[in-house]
């Protein structure tokens, strides 16, 4: 994708966000925006604060300073329920699936907020609750087809190989039909074939559903290929923000990644 067909409408903006754990500064005055429809990469060495940033966006962490503006609404902090109900879905670095549940059930939990019948009908499993369950089941099946995981529909996810678990986790996030999808190292621990599959899914999600994506990834060739814009963090500070070409040529970024000799 080139810069021309990028919309300039901002979906999410974080401004001057700082987050401390005790005396440790996880984030220090970070500001960037995510435009509607783009794939935005957040990169940086280990411990740079990338995951913390995602946790701030979906409300797991509450920053001490700064604001988060999502869909035009400015807040000092998000709450997980708020984030989820306003269309932010995510995956986790260390896979947080419901291990005892089947693939289908995991994906169905992603539709939790789409299901509105009350407990009374559900307890009886009749009437509107049953109809709703079937409708949402159909949506879940679409996602299973999309991700090509029909064969493991009924399998408990705890028993699946790592690459497939990552895929199921993506499926659960997609089931919520998110506007903003946060992916925390979607390709960590994958072989090159699995990485290619995952890249294809990410691009398809972005193009077909128009989902805005923010992703953390360590594989630089993947990042450069996938993303429209990249923000670089290092020790909680923002090092650079720009197009892949600019980031690749940025001297400070190269130093942060490769280290530099001070002589």
């Amino acid at each position: 994708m080139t810069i021309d067909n990028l919309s300039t409408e901002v979906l999410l903006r974080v401004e001057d966000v700082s987050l401390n754990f005790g005396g440790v500064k996880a984030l220090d005055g970070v500001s960037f925006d995510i435009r509607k429809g783009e794939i935005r990469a957040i990169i940086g060495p280990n411990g740079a604060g990338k995951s913390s940033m995602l946790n701030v966006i979906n409300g797991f962490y509450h920053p001490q300073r700064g604001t988060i503006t999502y869909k035009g609404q400015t807040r000092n902090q998000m709450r997980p329920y708020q984030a989820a109900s306003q269309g932010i879905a995510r995956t986790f670095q260390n896979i947080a699936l419901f291990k005892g549940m089947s693939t289908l059930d995991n994906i169905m939990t992603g539709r939790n907020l789409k299901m509105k019948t009350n407990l009374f009908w559900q307890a009886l499993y009749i009437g509107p609750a049953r109809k709703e369950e079937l409708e949402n089941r159909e949506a879940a099946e679409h996602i299973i087809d999309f991700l090509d995981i029909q064969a493991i529909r009924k399998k408990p996810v705890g028993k699946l190989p790592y690459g497939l678990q990552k895929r199921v986790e993506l499926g659960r996030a997609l089931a919520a039909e998110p506007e903003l999808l946060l992916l925390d190292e979607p390709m960590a621990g994958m072989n090159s074939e699995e990485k290619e599959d995952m890249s294809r899914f990410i691009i398809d999600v972005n193009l077909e559903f128009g989902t805005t994506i923010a992703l953390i990834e360590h594989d630089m060739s993947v990042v450069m290929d996938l993303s429209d814009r990249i923000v670089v963090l290092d020790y909680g500070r923002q090092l650079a923000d720009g197009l892949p070409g600019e980031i690749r040529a940025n001297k400070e970024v190269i130093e942060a990644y490769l280290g530099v000799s001070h002589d």
Partner: protein
Amino acid sequence: MIFFIEVVLSGLMAGVMYSLVALGFVLIFKASGIFNFAQGVMALFAALTLVGFMEKFGMPVWLAIAGTIVVMIALAWVIERAMLRHLINQEPIILFMATIGLAYVLEGLGDILWGSDVKLLDLGIPQGASDWMLDNFDIYIEKLEIFAAATAAIMVTILAIFFQKTSTGRALRAVADDHQAALSVGISLHTIWVIVWSVSGIVALVAGIMWGSKSGVQFSLSLIALKALPVLILGGFTSVPGAIIGGMIIGVGEKVAEVYLGPFVGGAIENWFAYMLALAFLLFRPQGLFGEKIIERV
């Protein structure tokens, strides 16, 4: 042979009564990892409230039961608001201590509201021996126990459907599995906790009704929670079928041991047999028959 069947059957029925209490423990442990020490007292409190509604307010049985259910749901809400909400992310031992406190609060509350004398609970559940069983099979079995077994079966079926087939049930399982992931898909922990504690409050009511009908509503009722412990160790803390089958094994084991081994050691096996069995399980299969095996990586 008839005698042996009689012993086993009466053991099964007693076991169902244990299962009813154990079930309440399992529900809360599954969804929040809390071992709810107050489960027995909740059964007592529910039974006291039920009797109180009937005796003091002269409510008909159905209205008193409905009223008690409302009280148990309100109680769940208060527990979530006043206790659980403030202890989020705390160690399990702290939550456990909090439920010990809750047990005393509830016991005191029951005492203040409804008095401490032993009360009869008569809901019109049939009492005495089942004539049909006696006539056809020459087996002595209490009607109340058959009733309790049938109720437990219905309740477990409803719970199983609720857990497996509904979105709330799925959300409950999700919370039990991974708090953070559950939050990320927009499941509200607070709502889930109110629901679980309500459901286990209702299960406590059923247990309270059965035990109350059998031996009167008295404060020693809260001690049946102790008998639920070996049941849980046997069945596994996280398994609903485990609670049921564990209860039955304990019930049958106790009765059979009492009748056939008792004479050799001077009797009174029934009082400690369950705990010995639990101890054996702790040594050889600590996760219980159906519980999840927990492997801690060091």
